[in-house]
């Protein structure tokens, strides 16, 4: 009988401890991150993942937050079929409330139907194809970054402003590349540029010598490339091999450090246009980069990191407001107007598209992407071609 006393005592103590713990602990809410964690553009995907993770960590460190957040990272490999699998995995798990989704347009456009079918709120953080928000009217799909329409408008206006007249367009034959081709051609024609020829290439093509020799024959001043870093590197490198002396004008798709790593000195003078601004010029850039550095991630946030951070922050703000309920989160997200974020004000239009007016022009100078206005090319000390 005397043995029972300590047992009862320990049981009571354990129960009390558990009760205390339960009282102190917050409910855990899961949000998904989906982006290319492997493959040619994985640097951007990992940068985005780290940035979303940073937003979650900062929120969890905030004593005022009502919930504890957990980020579930999924890899879409920048491929449509894998993206649908990842989207289905996230959306079919009821414990995941919303997602920070996709860097690649081909992945995002393939996955939007899945989000719609499952009623899963998704905030796109990097993909720029207009159709992602504009093809359908899915209440679930939002996007914090701009689209390639704005990007190509600025690109065409800027380049014709520099007195270039003759272009050859090379684009990959995915929706992403075809979109760039379409909008760039549209604006280039409007601003008085001339397209001498266009080449659709596959997204994993290795050899471009035949296309580039044909391009060489057309004697363009600028080669415009609508596609992502891996083939951008190949095309720029093979241009040199064939002695093509033209400016290489890319899109947001090549604005990554791996473009410069892959090319070394050859990257000099390549151009890129991207929505938003460098972190130094973003309203909350200094704050973001300071916090990012503290976490000691082994890779940088890359160009779209601040957007992934913003998307995750936006989702958590809404969950704090309406609770972890997908339907309410969708309703509340859609109401976002003039909301302050590190990338500036966020306002969703009736398609869930943020109306970001800001596009920044970049040029590679001495192994770094430099904002055009700050570069020696703009000041006239260096010449593009």
């Amino acid at each position, binding site marked *: 009988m005397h043995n029972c006393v300590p047992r009862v005592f320990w049981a009571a103590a354990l129960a009390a401890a558990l009760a205390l713990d339960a009282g102190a602990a917050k409910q855990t809410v899961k949000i998904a991150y989906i982006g290319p964690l492997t493959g040619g553009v994985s640097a951007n995907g990992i940068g985005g993942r780290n940035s979303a993770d940073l937003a979650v960590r900062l929120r969890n460190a905030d004593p005022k937050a009502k919930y504890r957040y957990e980020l579930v990272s999924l890899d879409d490999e920048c491929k449509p079929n894998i993206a649908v699998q990842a989207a289905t995995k996230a959306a079919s798990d009821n414990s995941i409330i919303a997602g920070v989704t996709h860097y690649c347009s081909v992945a995002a456009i393939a996955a939007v139907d899945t989000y719609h079918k499952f009623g899963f709120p998704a905030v796109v953080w990097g993909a720029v194809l207009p159709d992602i928000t504009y093809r359908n009217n899915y209440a679930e799909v939002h996007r914090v970054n701009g689209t390639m329409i704005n990007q190509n408008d600025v690109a065409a206006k800027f380049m014709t402003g520099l007195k270039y007249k003759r272009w050859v367009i090379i684009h990959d034959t995915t929706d992403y590349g075809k979109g760039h081709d379409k909008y760039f051609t549209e604006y280039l024609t409007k601003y008085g540029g001339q397209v001498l*020829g266009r080449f659709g*290439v596959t997204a994993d093509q290795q050899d471009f*010598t035949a296309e580039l020799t044909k391009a*060489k024959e057309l004697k363009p001043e600028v080669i415009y490339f609508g596609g992502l870093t891996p083939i951008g590197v190949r095309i720029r490198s093979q241009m040199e091999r064939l002695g093509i002396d033209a400016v290489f004008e890319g899109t947001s798709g090549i604005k990554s450090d791996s473009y410069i790593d892959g090319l070394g000195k050859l990257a000099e003078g390549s151009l890129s246009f991207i929505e938003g601004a460098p972190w130094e010029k973003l309203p909350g850039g200094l704050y973001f980069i300071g916090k990012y550095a503290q976490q000691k991630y082994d890779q940088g946030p890359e160009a779209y990191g601040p957007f992934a951070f913003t998307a995750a922050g936006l989702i958590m703000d809404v969950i704090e407001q309406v609770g972890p309920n997908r339907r309410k989160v969708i309703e509340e997200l859609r109401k976002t107007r003039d909301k302050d974020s590190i990338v500036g004000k966020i306002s969703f239009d009736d398609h869930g598209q943020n109306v970001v007016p800001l596009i920044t022009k970049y040029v590679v100078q001495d192994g770094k992407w430099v904002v055009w206005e700050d570069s020696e090319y703009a000041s006239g000390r260096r010449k593009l071609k």
Partner: protein
Amino acid sequence: MDVGLFGQYVANGLMLGVIYAMVAVGFTLFFGVLDVIKFSHGDVLTAGAFAGLATYGGLQALGFASPAVQLLIILLVAVAAMAFLGALIAKYLVLPLRTAPPLNTLLLTLMLGAALRECVRLFYPQGANPKPFPRLLPQDAVALGSFTLRLDNVLLLLGGLAAIAAVHFVITRTKLGLAIRAVAQDAETARIMGIDFERVVLLTFALGSGLAALAGIMNGLYYSEINFSIGLLLGVIGFSAAVVGGLGNIYGAILGGFLFAGLQTVGAVLLPALLPQVPSAYKDVFAFAAVIAFMAWRPTGLIAERTAERV
């Protein structure tokens, strides 16, 4: 089109052709000597290129700065490693299945190829990303009108042709070559004549795989980049080239390689010119369609195999 541009197309086609021919020669060697189709051949090429890149990393760390010495060591290590891998594949995967239906060997090597590819992707540091390949050859270029002649292209082309010529020399002029040809014609009789059958098979696989490693390094030097999946398409193209040329015939493989490269180049140039709505991305479709049509016309390939002329 001016002469310079035409020359440029020919030069591009020749570079592609020599790489395809090297892969095709490997397929033909394996088929000639053992009647097997080794589908992991393209992935051995990838593994060879990555072995070269890893060696380069090691040499950089050790402080070898001379590009010529680096290239020589890279070539030696990659070719030796893949030759060894080729012999291992032959000994433990291909030879034990000799009595099994040929389909089994085909399936087994197909799976081995996938395994090799995934191993490169998973175990090479950040192996899923394309890797810049060092520019170890002189980059000098001369512009002759609209034709740009680059020294590294010339060296690569000559290197590739020399490698194919060397393999041809081994097959036709050496004792080992005689043994390979004997085994290819009639393995049983060759054995009775005192030829070590297993040794000949292993050496043939080592030879073909070493050649694949060389093709992998050349591919890296030419494009200044490699990735884990380069071998996939190169393997299919090399195999098609070998079949078009006449599987089992070394001249056929070389011819097939250059023919395929020619078809791709013509496809990339002509398709968008004739049908503006068809992008040049369809050049592979064009080349493979032409191969299908060709095979329907000549099912045994350009140079039909005669048992007496095998390998």
